């Protein structure tokens, strides 16, 4: 390992008593006592249904829960008298369960690192990370994440979900098109709550000298996905099911989400430039199941507020944006922001150019990097406003076509990013 990781003695003892495993499922947690029991049961059932002959382990990496989450993980057991799915299947091997507390406060980076360390020490062949907050998790989700790795020798499996057409807009408008155009492989859910990976990829990621970096602590999955791509591991996507909407006020707000995700993406661009600057042609990523599945129920959105925040943001942050963007781009954004609510459109072409200029300025550190990413938030709102207006009545098919057009626009402007990047 390039960087020593300090694992608790008790955790190492538990892992040693487990020995080697074929399948490992990690559950990062923090005060999830109310829902984690259901997650553990689903994992146990997926082991029994899909991997009855394999050596399996469940690892819970907890961030210091005070609601008895760890105890729930250890005490939850499927009723052996009942049959799974009515088929009477039971695992032929003992399912091992390991619980550890990696710290006194939650950290996505530390949780993933702990699970990777467990996968490395247990020499697991296929691993999955499952969020205990997912309320509609089924055994199929876990099997769909693990099977491409265990049976088809893939190294990284990103999930695909059925979602509402207005959900995941940061992924649809920024993370997916930008990572696809830059890295050449389009991963729809770059910051997923569920993912699968091979033991080889786990060991590779664990050996990277990055774990102390602030930039990946909140969204390490982005770094892991892009590392898998840039290190030539075999990546794919697997459809899991419906991603339920987070209840209002429970998910991260726009500013936090942009800071965490775009910060991680830009950091990866910086640290993995040797790969993407030399990349020749984009390659399609294999998907198991439908690549896009959208629902279109009506939704109560406050478009006017989004528009107001965009307009006032461009006005108030003028000097900051001027130091990040090219004069022509800045002028165009100001023209868009000056238009009426009905006419205001942040085109895909302008959006791609804006993001590439932000990425290049982030690389050249023209300002404090966190400030730069915060300055992107009003522009993201402008793009989202435009997106919401354009797709008020769009069908799933039309929206998919629009996403593809946006990706093509990003691809087209990629040389501009390279030019500004090297300037």
């Amino acid at each position, binding site marked *: 390992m390039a960087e020593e990781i300090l694992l608790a003695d008790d955790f190492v003892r538990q892992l040693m008593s487990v020995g080697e495993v074929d399948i490992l499922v990690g559950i990062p947690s923090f005060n999830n006592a109310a829902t984690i029991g259901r997650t553990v049961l689903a994992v146990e059932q997926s082991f029994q249904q899909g991997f009855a002959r394999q050596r399996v382990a469940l690892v819970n990496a907890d961030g210091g829960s005070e609601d008895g989450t760890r105890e729930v993980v250890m005490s939850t057991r499927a009723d052996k008298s009942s049959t799974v799915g009515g088929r009477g299947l039971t695992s032929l091997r003992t399912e091992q369960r390991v619980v550890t507390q990696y710290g006194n406060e939650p950290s996505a980076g530390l949780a993933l690192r702990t699970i990777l360390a467990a996968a490395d020490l247990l020499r697991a062949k296929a691993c999955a990370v499952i969020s205990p907050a997912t309320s509609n998790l089924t055994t199929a989700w876990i099997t769909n994440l693990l099977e491409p790795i265990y049976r088809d020798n893939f190294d990284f499996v990103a999930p695909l979900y059925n979602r509402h057409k207005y959900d*995941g807009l940061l992924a649809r408008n920024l993370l997916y098109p930008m990572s696809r155009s830059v890295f050449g492989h389009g991963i729809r859910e770059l910051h997923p709550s569920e993912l699968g990976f091979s033991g080889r990829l786990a060991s590779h990621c664990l050996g990277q000298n990055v774990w102390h970096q602030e930039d990946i602590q909140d969204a390490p999955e982005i770094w892991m996905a892009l590392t898998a791509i840039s290190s030539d591991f075999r990546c794919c996507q697997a459809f899991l099911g419906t991603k339920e909407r987070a209840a209002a006020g429970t998910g991260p707000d726009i500013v936090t989400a942009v800071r965490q995700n775009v910060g991680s993406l830009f950091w990866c661009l910086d640290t993995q430039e040797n790969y993407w600057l030399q990349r020749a042609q984009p390659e399609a990523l294999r998907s198991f199941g439908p690549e896009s599945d959208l629902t279109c129920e009506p939704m109560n*959105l406050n478009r006017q507020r989004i528009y107001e925040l965009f307009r006032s943001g461009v006005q108030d942050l003028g000097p900051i944006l001027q130091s990040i963007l090219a004069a022509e781009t800045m002028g165009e954004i100001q023209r868009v922001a000056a238009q009426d609510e009905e006419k205001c459109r942040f085109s895909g072409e302008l959006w791609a150019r804006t993001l590439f200029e932000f990425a290049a300025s982030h690389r050249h550190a023209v300002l404090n990097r966190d400030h730069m990413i915060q300055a992107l938030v009003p522009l993201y709102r402008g793009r989202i406003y435009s997106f919401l207006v354009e797709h008020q009545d769009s069908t799933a098919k039309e929206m998919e076509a629009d996403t593809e057009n946006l990706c093509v626009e990003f691809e087209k402007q990629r040389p501009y990013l390279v030019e500004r990047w090297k300037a």
Partner: protein
Amino acid sequence: MKVMILQGLSQAYDNLVHMIAIFVPRFAVMLIIVVVGWLVALVLRYVFRAILHVSRLDRISEEAGASQVLRKAALPSISELLSRALFWVVWLGFMVLGVSVLGIPELHEQIARVFQLLPQIFIAILILFFGVLASNFLSRAALLASVNAGHRSPRVWSASIRFVILILAFSMALEQIGLANQTVISAFSIVFGTAMLALAIAFGLGGRHLARHALEQYFGSRKTEPDKGEEPSPL
């Protein structure tokens, strides 16, 4: 009488020659010290600049917003500025050494007095520099936070933060060089106190409806406003 005048002139001439004989070598030594000092300072400046370049100080300064401040003030980069400062400190040190060789006590005293003030001036400049840096960084952070949260008048908040920090740094710098200590402290107290009082009155008058609304919402005695819709989930 004539003899006495001649003797006086001769003595004066002898004294002059003696003084010149003493002064010229000393002056030559002083010149040598100054020239050597210039060379040493020049070498140190290049070495120091190279070290700062390796330590990527300019990039850190760029990220912290210090470079922007320097550019606005038509000053060079931070590494160039520091290496130039080192050059002048070293060369001035050699100059003082050279002047002391001349053996003119009054001149030496005056220069020593100026030099005694130099550390204070240097610290005062440092305080001002870091004050400008902090005001720049924090006012920008406040501006971004309030713009993204949709607060009203974000530029006013940002400018207020910049103003308060700059006033604080300026008064600390003046206090450091001991310039009108009492006046500076009193002026600072008056300005700062006035600003705070103005803010308190403005908030009290302008924000009373907001405060009542917030308190009513907090204690649940009033229904929340009808839902105007939400922002779409980013993730």
